[in-house]
């Protein structure tokens, strides 16, 4: 894990939300969604993040891209602390870090056509681009996720779940990011479509040198894509290491419970 340069380093990250007090004079205990976690994501690699609902894995991913407020800790991107930046100052990093969401049905604006969905990030991050350039870039993006460029004029409802997830990936790729946070990108898809999207993500990683933080609860999928696995429970990282070690020979009781719950065949 030490050889490649770290693209992202998270140090002592905590995200606490104010809790609800049972009585108005009582001090509310904060809800510790993420509690003092540290990990490194090396350039060009995939770090898998597993855990149950409520373990803090999604909040971790969102905190990296400033979609969840940090309580404490540092987010170092190529050595620079981006956790404390204001929203305006963070803009250049939004271009480098993109996100793919779980639900392909709710993460695309139903009233916009694919061209405007893919153009929007370009308008923000490449204001100098002409309309024709943008359109050409969008067509190229669709081809890179193996969809025909003619689909630019269609709307999200005309696509299947797998195709929508491809469009979500194309949107993330639009601004040429380095790091993509994939939050359960295949868990809403059928197994056959899941395999296609996983292969696509791996192909894109190879072609574009992308780095992934891959959040999922399906241990077999995480094992397949990851170079390194983090296991989260109750806001903390309980175990981390290479897939063969974590899933083949887990030390923590929690990891063992997770593994034992997977039905084998």
């Amino acid at each position, binding site marked *: 894990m030490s050889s490649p340069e770290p693209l992202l380093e998270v140090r002592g990250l905590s995200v606490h939300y104010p809790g609800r007090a049972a009585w108005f004079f009582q001090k509310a205990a904060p809800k510790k969604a993420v509690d003092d976690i540290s990990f490194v994501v090396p350039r060009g690699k995939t770090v898998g993040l597993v855990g*149950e609902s409520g373990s803090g894995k999604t909040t971790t991913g969102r905190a990296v891209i400033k979609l969840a407020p940090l309580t404490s800790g540092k987010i170092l991107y190529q050595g620079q602390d981006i956790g404390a930046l204001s929203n305006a100052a963070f803009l250049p990093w939004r271009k480098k870090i993109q996100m793919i969401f779980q639900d392909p049905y709710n993460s695309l604006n139903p009233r916009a056509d694919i061209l405007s969905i893919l153009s929007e990030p370009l308008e923000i991050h490449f204001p100098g681009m002409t309309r024709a350039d943008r359109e050409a870039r969008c067509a190229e993006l669709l081809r890179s996720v193996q969809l025909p460029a003619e689909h630019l004029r269609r709307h999200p409802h005309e696509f299947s779940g797998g195709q929508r997830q491809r469009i979500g990936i194309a949107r993330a790729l639009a601004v040429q990011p380095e790091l993509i946070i994939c939050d359960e990108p295949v868990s809403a898809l059928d*197994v*056959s479509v899941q395999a296609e999207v996983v292969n696509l993500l791996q192909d894109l990683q190879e072609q574009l040198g992308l780095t992934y933080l891959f959040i999922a*609860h399906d241990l077999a999928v995480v*094992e397949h894509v990851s170079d390194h696995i983090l296991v989260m429970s109750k806001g903390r990282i309980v175990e981390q290491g290479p*897939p063969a070690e974590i899933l083949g020979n887990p030390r923590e009781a929690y990891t063992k419970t*997770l*593994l034992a719950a*997977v039905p084998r*065949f």
Partner: protein
Amino acid sequence: MTSFFLPLSRPPPYLDHMSAEPLLQVRDLSVTFRTGDRETIAARGVSYDLAPGEVLAVVGESGSGKSVTALALTRLLPPAPGCVVRGSVRLAGQELLGLPEDAMAKVRGGSIAYVFQEPGSSLNPVYTIGFQIGEAISLHRPEIRDVGAEVVRALREVRINEPERVAGQYPHELSGGMQQRAMIAMALACDPKILVADEPTTALDVTIQKEIMDLLGRLRRERGMSIILITHNFGIVANFADKVQVMWKGEIVEQGAVADIMRAQAHPYTKALIACIPRLGQRRRRLTTLSAELKVSA
């Protein structure tokens, strides 16, 4: 095959005489949707038998017709000109498809109950859990006087702690696993002969999934209830079901005993579908995908 869901390591004793008469007999069932002058055949030629206490798994991708077929059993689909159901569905010898709506309403929930994928959207957010279960009970079992006590009993049966308190809670106050338990309690409150579980654990974590499947296994064993389990998780099929049916483009392309089909698949689609799944401890460089001719949709 190693057993995963503890209660089902051996076939239950009541399966010994299952050859007698099937509880459910489906013959040549087809579902056609009509929009304008266009006809879409969602399912056709579906035939199978289900014995008391048997678990039938139905696998296939989105759009393969597996949910529609299960809904068609009780005509839980749009009314006639838009959607036409043909064929025969016999429940304990009684033909269901020709039943008038009021008689069918008694079968629905009464003899054949459903549990759906997303418990969060199947429960009504503005009523308490207890009210919703009580509603099902008073509808199907009007002879019961103390509905409240029956609700608590139903919640206790699905192993919900503090059932009295949970009965007074609203769906949003419960976790996904608890909501699904409440849905199962509601489905079971009317003592159905068949439970149709449509992807009951797809939205849940693996540990909760195991709890729910263990719960269904126990209920089946204790009540001798049959289960039609719609899923795309072959791990669950292998560990939980007796029979499996593979649907592809609206038709059953393969069906048989789980052990046989997991060992050797006759249809290329079944083979390809199983090959797509990443398995723990068997890391491959690339996942296998379906070839173009086997794909259901683009």
